[in-house]
Every structure is written in structure tokens, then in C-alpha cells.
């Protein structure tokens, strides 16, 4: 079991069974925000299209409005000018919400992080709380799917508790 951290906005009184059911539903319907920053976003689009099809695991409903999305996929380089916008989008999303940092740029600045650089924010974790990181430049769509599955396992607190899932992930993940 992970250590329990109270999310901002989470209820103080919690009911275990209800929580489990809600988490199961949340994990299986992660709606990402239609939002990309740089080259990694192209891979995100590919993951949503026919060949990889995020919709199979219920994560293909890319919502245009942050009010209706559950997960923000920070896909690409975070320019200094873009950082406040990303923060605002994050604030506009209703709880519970998650963030995936996709690609080296949003993990640590990637190829643009050198000494005395002035243009980018080296890492999405500096502006929003990141749940899952997906390394790669760019990560392949399979990697994004792997990351989403890992996020699902994080939400249900362990792969074994995701009762709706009908397959096993080969490796990795919480639990």
C-alpha cells in the first residue's frame, strides 16, 4: 500500500467501498485534455488514432474543455511563456485530476536543458504535480499507453484491484 496523501479537494470523511467503486470508474474512464505543446503531442495524437486507439481502454475521449477532462498529458516542451497557461489549465480542471509528463522535455527539459538556458521550464513538476512520467524523445504511443495503464493502477491502488481490466500488464507499475 502507498502512503495515503490527502489530495486537495478530496473529502475529509471517506467510505472505503464507495471510494473503491469510484476509483474503479475513474481509472477506467480517463478523459485526457485536447492539449499538446510540441513534437510529443504528435505521438499523443497517434496514440489516439486508429493504429493504437486509446479508446480501447476508455481513455480516447479527448475533451476540449479542461472542465470535463480528468488527466492532463503535458506532451512537449514547456516554454516559459506557456507555463502560466498550463498552470491555469490545471487549475481549471475539476478534482480528482491527474497529470502525465510525457517526453523528456516535460520531465526535465530534455534536449533544451543546458546551462544558462533562458527559454524553457525544465520539467512539468515545477509547475504542476506530476503523477506519471513517460521517458523518451518522443516516447512511442505504446509508451503512452503503458503510462496510462500505470496511472490506472495508481488510481485503483494496485493492478489486482482493477477488477474491470481483463488483461495483465507484462511488467512495471505500482504494486
Amino acid at each position, binding site marked *: 500500500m502507498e502512503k495515503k496523501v490527502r489530495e486537495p*479537494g478530496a473529502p475529509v470523511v471517506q467510505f472505503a467501498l464507495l471510494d473503491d*467503486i*469510484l476509483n*474503479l*470508474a*475513474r481509472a*477506467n*474512464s480517463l478523459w485526457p485534455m*485536447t492539449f499538446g505543446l510540441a513534437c510529443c503531442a504528435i505521438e499523443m495524437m497517434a496514440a489516439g*488514432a*486508429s*493504429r493504437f*486507439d486509446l*479508446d*480501447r*481502454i*476508455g481513455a*480516447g*475521449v479527448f*475533451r*476540449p*474543455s479542461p*472542465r*470535463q477532462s*480528468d488527466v492532463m498529458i503535458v506532451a512537449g516542451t514547456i516554454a516559459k511563456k506557456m507555463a502560466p497557461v498550463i498552470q491555469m489549465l490545471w487549475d*481549471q480542471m*475539476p*478534482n*480528482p485530476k491527474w497529470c502525465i509528463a510525457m517526453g523528456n522535455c516535460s520531465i526535465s527539459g530534455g534536449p533544451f536543458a543546458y546551462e544558462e538556458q533562458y527559454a524553457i521550464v525544465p520539467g512539468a513538476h515545477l509547475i504542476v504535480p506530476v503523477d506519471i512520467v513517460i521517458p523518451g524523445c518522443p516516447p512511442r504511443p505504446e509508451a503512452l499507453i503503458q503510462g496510462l495503464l500505470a496511472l490506472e493502477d495508481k488510481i485503483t491502488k494496485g493492478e489486482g484491484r482493477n477488477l*474491470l*481490466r*481483463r*488483461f495483465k500488464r507484462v511488467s512495471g507499475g505500482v504494486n
Partner: protein
Amino acid sequence: MSEGLLGSEWFRLILGLLIVLAFSQLNALFLVWLERKVAGHLQLRPGPMEVGPHGLLQTIADGVKLVGKELILPFKADRKLFFLAPVMVFMPVLVGFLVLPFSRGLIIRDMNVGVLLVFAFSTITVLAILTGGWASNNKYALLGAVRSVAQNVAYEIPLLLAVLSVVLVVHSLSFAKIVEYQKTVWFIFLQPLAGLIYLIAATAETNRAPFDIPEAESELVAGFHTEYSGMGFGLFFLAEYTNMFIVCAVATSLFFGGWNGLFGISLGIPGVFWFLLKTYFLIFVIMWVRWTFPRVRFDQLMNFSWKVMIPLSLANIVITAIVVKII
């Protein structure tokens, strides 16, 4: 209370209401799943697959998730109207179920103004959309709402004119009478133009692509429901699909013979199945259209209604009136 509780009017009404509520929810859940499956298969991908067999539990997971989401009231939004709009959008579509002729005896209430009632109440949906867009206090939501009103005003006219040409032939506004009239020949064969105009206008009325400019993602974020989170958005979503069912059910009973089989051949299948079969086929066609055609531009949309559909439906109604008079 002479005829007892079971036969009383109130009991029938409450039972009808409960059945309608349950049916509309289940139907909406099924339609959302169907939409995603149709979209998937039209784009050479499987659609929802892993949550339940063939993704059948997907929409239930979505629904539970939406209930569990935080409801955000935007800063400076109109509190009362903001929460009233999603409720208001769902109410009129329920009223529509009252007069739908599922089968010969299976109408909750066969009113002699049934057709009028459905279309009168369906306009409340537009009002709800306008309320929602206005109360959100967001420029995109307001623009989406205004577009929705303009579009609905433009398409209500050909829709009603198309329906009127059917009514002129039958001399009745009751659904049961209209369906009874199509025992041998469906109205789509007698009034092909009216049927086509009805289907196009109905697609626009329910804000479906290619006429979904009130929620055009590429221009307006998410249109009138930009600011709605959680179940507020969920209700708009459910209402859209229930509305789609109503529109297609009305099309079935007005143009596709309702509970009658093709050319009077019913093959011994009960009328309800004919009715539902045709309705769901029409819904499938509307989904098919959505995932095939790109979204039209706003001026194209308005021009198409005012310059093509309205003159055509007017001409159709005049010709129908003359023919009915002569025969």
C-alpha cells in the same frame, strides 16, 4: 377510487414516468457506447474494448466517474441559472416520451395534438442551452449558445413544414392516426422530399455533426457546455442522446411507418420491435453521417436552411395541399 388503485389515472402516469426515466437513461448509456463503437469501426479501430466485454461497461464507468467529479461554479457565473440549465435541458425530452407510439396499444397518452406537443417541448432544449451558455459567463459558452439559437430557429421552420405536409395528408396531429395511415405505404415513399428535409433538419436540431457548430471544438473550446463539469456536463450529454432517440422515433412514426412492417408485411414480428428496429437504424444513420462528414461553416449552415430547405419545404407543402384538394 372506484376502479381501484391499479386502474387509476395517477397510477398509470407514475408508472409511465418511472418506465420512461429508466428507459431514457438506459437508452442514453447504450447510445453513447454505440456512438463510440460506430466511430471506432468507421475509423478502422475497435473503439471501447477492454472495460467489460466489447467495452459494454465503458459508459457506466464514465457515468459513475462523472457523478464523482467536482462540480465547479465559475467565478461570476449566475449560480441559479447555471445549475438550472442542465435540469431544464433534460425535462422536455422526457415529455416527448409521453406521446411516442411504440406500438398499437403502447402509448402512454395518445393525444390529438401529439405531434405538436413533441415539437413544442423540444424548443425548450434550446432555451436551456441559451440559459447554460449565458449563465456560464464565458465568451465561448455564450457564442456557442447564441449559435445554437440561430441554428435552431433556422431549422425549426423546415422541420415543421416537412411535418406539416404529412399532417395535411392525414388530417390529424395524433401519432396513432398518422401511423395507422401508413399501414401499406410509408410516408417516405409518398413524401420523400419531406422525409429528407425532416432528417436533415432533425440532425441540425439535435446539434449533431455536421451541424454541431454550437459545440465546435476547433473554434469554441466546447461550445455552450464549456464551463460544465461533472454531472452538469453529463446531463447535457444524456439529453443530447435522448433527444436523438426522440427525433428518430418521431421520424419513424411520421415517415417510416411506426409499428407497421414494410408494405404491410409485418412477418409476425410485434410492432414494438419494428418501431425500435427502425428507430435505432435511423440513429445509426445519424451517427454514420456524423463520423463521415466534416463540420459545415456557420454561413453555409444558415444559407442552406434559408435558401434551400425552407423554399423546398414550402413548395412541397403547397404541392401537397393542391394534390390533397384534387384527390
